[in-house]
């Protein structure tokens, strides 16, 4: 089973929602669409589902052209951010409804519904109406309806966005399990990098209607192909700084020097590094020291986010433990050059972080 988008694009009223895109998703994979609001996640999903027709290009399902085929004729299930269930039906009937439409026998339906309900921890609520349940349970019911169909393609459009933080955490842990049990192609849209990492599988990063990178999730996270992908896949946001390469030397803004990676042309680059790689104590001998100014410190109890200004750039330091300080205080932060990505003038990755190469 594969879903292939070939030279797909989508233009609505002169505005390009999706630029020309090629993407092939394999059977039994979890694929996360990661990008900010309006980056094209939902547009892409609607094209995959067949809810919209692409302006150009074709969509293939198992090598058969399904461009323009009705959604009803495809094996597609979709779950939305809003909890969409039939309010007048019991949970049992809600889960059973797609099977009834498929004309399955009563016995078959009963077995499938009970199995899915058990997986979704809905067994005690089968006779309840959706609105009598909590948000988490309502969304479980919507997920159950999507899974019970045994569709080849399951599309989840920010399904956890309307849930409480802790419930989100629980369902995030559970969704990969359902996915493993089903063997379908899962596509999961989210704005949160952490969610993509937790779900694993593959990640597609989206920015302004373009796919910037597609690959295994940790791979995309540690080897972003360009600056935009790195930004999309960093929360807290990635920090940047100008750097000059000359000969065997890298000179950071502020005069710090580090050995330059081999094979890099001389010139101006942008260094990118994630907040948790900045330290407030020197841990490695090779770490570079940067003298900045503290703007704000946010303490979570287990760690502290220190917002630092360094030569006009705003950085975030994600440090373990509790660190307080007054706004405006001088603050030294340390960075191991092994954690630095170098991006060239076009934003393309010039050298990955040494750390990333190893992982």
């Amino acid at each position, binding site marked *: 089973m594969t879903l292939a988008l070939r030279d797909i694009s989508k233009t*609505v009223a002169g505005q390009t929602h999706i630029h020309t895109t090629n993407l092939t998703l394999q059977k039994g994979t979890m694929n996360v669409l990661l990008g900010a609001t309006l980056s094209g996640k939902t547009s892409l999903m609607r094209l995959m589902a*067949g*809810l*919209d*027709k692409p*302006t150009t290009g074709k969509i293939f399902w198992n090598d058969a052209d399904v461009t*323009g*085929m*009705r*959604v009803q004729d495809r094996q597609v299930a979709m779950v939305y951010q809003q909890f969409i269930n039939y309010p007048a039906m019991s949970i049992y009937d809600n889960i059973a409804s797609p099977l009834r439409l498929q004309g399955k026998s009563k016995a078959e339906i009963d077995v499938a519904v009970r199995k899915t309900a058990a997986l979704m921890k809905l067994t005690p609520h089968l006779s309840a109406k959706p609105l009598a349940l909590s948000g988490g349970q309502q969304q479980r019911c919507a997920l159950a309806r999507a899974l019970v169909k045994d569709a080849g393609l399951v599309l989840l459009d920010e399904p956890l966005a309307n849930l409480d933080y802790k419930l989100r955490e629980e369902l995030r842990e559970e969704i990969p399990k359902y996915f493993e049990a089903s063997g379908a192609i899962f596509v999961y849209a989210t704005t949160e990098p952490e969610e993509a990492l937790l779900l694993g599988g593959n990640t597609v990063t989206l920015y302004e209607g373009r796919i910037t990178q597609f690959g295994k999730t940790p791979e995309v996270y540690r080897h972003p192909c360009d600056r935009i992908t790195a930004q999309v896949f960093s929360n807290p946001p990635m920090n940047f700084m100008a750097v000059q390469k000359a000969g065997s030397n890298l000179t950071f803004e502020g005069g710090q020097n580090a050995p330059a990676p081999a094979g890099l042309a001389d010139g101006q680059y942008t260094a990118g590094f994630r907040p948790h790689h900045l330290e407030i104590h020197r841990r490695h001998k090779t770490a570079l020291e940067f003298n900045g100014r503290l703007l704000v410190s946010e303490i979570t109890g287990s760690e502290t986010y220190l917002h630092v200004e360094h030569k006009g750039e705003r950085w975030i330091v994600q440090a373990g433990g509790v660190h307080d300080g007054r706004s405006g205080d001088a603050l030294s932060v340390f960075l191991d050059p092994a954690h630095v990505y170098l991006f060239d003038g076009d934003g393309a990755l010039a050298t990955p972080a040494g750390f990333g190469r190893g992982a």
Partner: protein
Amino acid sequence: MEKTLNQKAWFLVLPVFLLVAFSAVIPLMTVVNYSLQDTFGNNKFFWAGLEWYTELLHSERLWSAFGRQIIFSAIILAIEVPLGVFVALNMPKKGVWASLCLVLMALPLLIPWNVVGTIWQIFGRVDIGLLGHTLAALGIDYNYTRDPLAAWITIITMDVWHWTSLVALLSYAGLQSIPEAYYQAAKIDQASRWSVFWFIELPKMQGVLMIAILIRFMDSFMIYTEPFVVTGGGPGNATTFLSIDLVKMALGQFDLGPAAAFSLMYFLVVMLVSWVFYTVMTNLDKKAGY
């Protein structure tokens, strides 16, 4: 948004196409045909070209009916829209009273046009009607069959009674869709009742109000049954609106040619105004989305 194409879908709309062809296109073509010819009976027709159109455009009778029509629609809109909004603002938001209000408001809308006309025709009669008789007893000279002003007041009151509910119900639906947070924020900002209306309620009701105005305009511009039943277009020609005039011309005098030309022009005016409304409305929508 563009949807998936499926050719089978055309079969589903085929019956509607046939129906529209029989009920609209063919009669319309007949009317066009009539409007360009003259007849002296015996089913014999002579080519008249645009003669009827030129004649009508210079006809004082048509222009005065048109003027009366415009004034009538303007008055109706000027009363029903603010009144409807006012009623909607004062309806209870939830609970038993809200449902009861909705039912009461919907009642006038369920009464057939000619029944409404008959009700008011009797209601206003000086000899037996409650309204007419009471007014006469109070010493007010009210007689819609003799006095043009009384006739206008009667017809306008009747229309307001019949149709304000529609505006009110649509506005009510618009009001219900405003999130509670807006009202809370306004309280916190110490906004006056008027500010709440002007800056929150009215902007949020814009869409439904446009629809209400469009429906009421088209409907009132084509009003026929009620004035026909109540006043028959009189006294004199005081309440002869466009459609009453048209029927007089077509059926009363059997002037098929001019009547056909008349109805086409009538149709075009209604279309034109509706199109203007539609354009304005969609532009507003575009401004709302970004």
